[in-house]
């Protein structure tokens, strides 16, 4: 055996930080979670027998909440840039903005859910209700967890010193936040926009007719 005692015990084989790689692995997995939910929604598109479907969408209102969520990603970038330049004050400001925008988005979603239920669409009404509420609810839960995480960083940061270690905390939270944001862009595009304005035809053939 050969031993080299000069090797730094804290190095990693790839040079990437372990926790950052863990977050990438988690996000890879999360793609499959959302992929399954969105695919099921698309497969069931137009299959509901009763009740509201995509006619219930209010694209202008959802466009506003989408815009707010996109802007929260910008704030997240500015927060990371702040701590990477050693400025904790800047970081805290933009972390707070990100979290507030995220909370506004969740507020819009709660309003949307409330409106839909008022108009008679619940998860029990039809296939559309089941897949729509589960998919967007799963996304809303992601945003909510992100908001809690961001506030936790905000308060914890009062004990921080700016440096690579603390910048990493923000960067990893940022990876998660941008991912959740990107998922929403996909959902807004192919569930809301295509749903409201797209062709009447299904996006995908029914499962039982694959290749039929």
């Amino acid at each position, binding site marked *: 055996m050969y031993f080299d005692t000069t090797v730094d015990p804290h190095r990693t084989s790839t040079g990437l930080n372990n926790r950052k790689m863990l977050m990438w692995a*988690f996000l890879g*997995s999360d793609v499959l979670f959302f992929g399954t939910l969105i695919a099921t929604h698309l497969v069931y598109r137009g299959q509901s027998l009763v009740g509201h479907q995509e006619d219930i969408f209010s694209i202008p209102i959802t466009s506003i909440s989408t815009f707010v969520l996109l802007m929260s990603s910008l704030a997240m970038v500015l927060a990371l840039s702040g701590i990477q330049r050693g400025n904790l004050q800047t970081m805290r400001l933009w972390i707070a903005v990100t979290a507030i925008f995220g909370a506004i988005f969740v507020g819009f979603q709660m309003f949307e859910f409330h409106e839909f239920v008022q108009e008679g669409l619940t998860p029990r009404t039809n296939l559309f209700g089941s897949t729509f509420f589960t998919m967007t609810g799963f996304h809303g839960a992601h945003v909510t967890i992100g908001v809690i995480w961001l506030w936790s960083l905000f308060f914890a940061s009062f004990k921080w010193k700016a440096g690579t270690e603390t910048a990493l905390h923000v960067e990893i939270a940022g990876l998660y936040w941008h991912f959740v944001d990107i998922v929403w862009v996909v959902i807004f595009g192919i569930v809301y926009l295509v749903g409201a304005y797209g062709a009447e035809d299904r996006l995908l053939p029914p*499962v039982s007719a694959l290749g039929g």
Partner: protein
Amino acid sequence: MVALANIGLIPRPVHPTGVWSWLTTVDHKRIGLLYGFTALAFSILGGIESLIIRAQLAAPNQSIVSPETYNSLFTMHGTTMVFMVVMPAGAAFFNYMVPLQIGARDVAFPRLNAFSYWVFLFGALLMNFSFFVGAFPDIGWFGYAPLTTNEYTTTGATDYWLLGLQVMGIGSLAAGFNFAVTILNLRAPGMTLMRMPLFTWMTLIVAFLLILAFPPLTIALTFLLFDRFFDMNFFNVSAGADPLLWQHLFWIFGHPEVYVLILPAMGIVSDVLPTFSRKPLFGYPMIVFAGIVIGFLGFGVWAHHMFTTGLGGWASAAFAGSTMVIAVPTGVKLFNWLGTMWGGSLRFKTPMLFAVGFIAMFLLGGLSGVMHAVVPVDTQQQDTYFIVAHFHYVLVGGSIFGLMAGLYYWWPKMTGRMLSERLGKWHFWLMFAGFNITFFPMHFLGVIGMPRRIYTYDADQGWAALNALVSAGSLVLTFSVLLLLVNLAISLRRGEKAGDNPWEAPSLEWATSSPPHHYNFAVVPTVRSRYPLWDEEANVVEPPPLPPHEEPHMPSPSYWPLMLAFSIVMLAVGLLIWQWHALIGIGFIVVMMVLGLRSIYGWVYEPPAVEAPAAVHAHT
């Protein structure tokens, strides 16, 4: 607001021995042993279930168990063997061996590793707990919806099944993340990817399979949970739902899952064969590449489980093609294993016997698998005992034989003691005979038309003689497993001392003591070839054990993984309580969410390590 940062400042547990040391351990070797013991315990349970099945089918028109009980037996036998025996047995080896094989002191996230184990154990216990509140689940290990929705399955046992599986899945995902990062990031200096032992390579592929295959299952279980608990419509056919949705989602998970079960065994065999043939693995890059190809293609063959559902010509043709293609990398591996043995100086110790047994039995299972790629043949064989024969050749003749090779190979490393070769050889040959007497006649039973999942049959159907033979074989198989248990017990009490490297094996786990120190390596080795202990045998420098005050700084034990796992399984229990009394259930769930959140914050803000005990300071 600053108080938040103080939230984790409960002192970390320090017990080096005793129950608390196991409950709070974050040592990958101890967690590996926990997985191993758990798998062994559940294998006894799953084995008893299968013995009752064989007793019932030993002769025509018996009524040892009722048809309902029979349904529960094959459901829990399948679920137990897949999720609570073969998966954790694989996890036992990759927990124990991968950090040693790559020259690391632990996994990348030791507390996450402990969490994976506890959440797996609690999920398994939750599912089996259904026995005490009425009945075992009786829906098959695949739990096909819409048959499992409220309309068709009214027993509460189904809820235990789906919640238990859901909770166990969290542990599998966490283990997947952990081992992907560990293998990619914690390799010793000089250990490039193409110098890694094959078992580590296959574990890396399994980690990615877990990461990518469990989400579809988790979502499918969530759909079923929402349908059963909240009357949603995912599988409600009268609301327009597609009756095949579950099958698609389940098998998109289910087929990669087959490779989760078999790839660790392939990795073990690829490590055992070179050691006992005294020559390097033949075509190492090809075996690695074949493993990666299997991982990719494993996601593209799921619908061969669904040929009889009427997918249509094009879909059937595509999946028949992909199923034939996936046999190619598997065949490549088989030839590489034979090439490894060719011209080697073979030593037929027990691990080698099981490895060679694996090659032969897995070949048979693989061949009957390719037969099912032919759609008309599959249509004929669907739901017959031919299928039962096929997957037992893959999962027992393949996975279990491979895991047995690993057990005999690594037991001396894990315990410091050898197993008896004489008992080992008896175990192998009895198991080999018992396995074939049990499962080979099932091919014939299937071809002459005996369907799966029937609780009895008439004498005039002509299945009686073969069924009696199968049941007799299962007794031989059981006896061989008892020999293993005896062998393990004798070895622990008075087994021969193993030494560091009893098999003269080439990889890094043999470069440390048996059993290894809790820090694995006093000095992390630097790797300069694929077979470090062979290529550098001349300059072995065995660093002496370190005095306590110079031991490497290892992560301290922690309460939080156990607490978080507990709160997660209790969330599932809360849903069951909710069914019985909504208000109490919601209250319970809220309490457990608070406990879970508290555990997460405790985990995140936990101080990195306890101060070294006072006794150690005395040395300095």
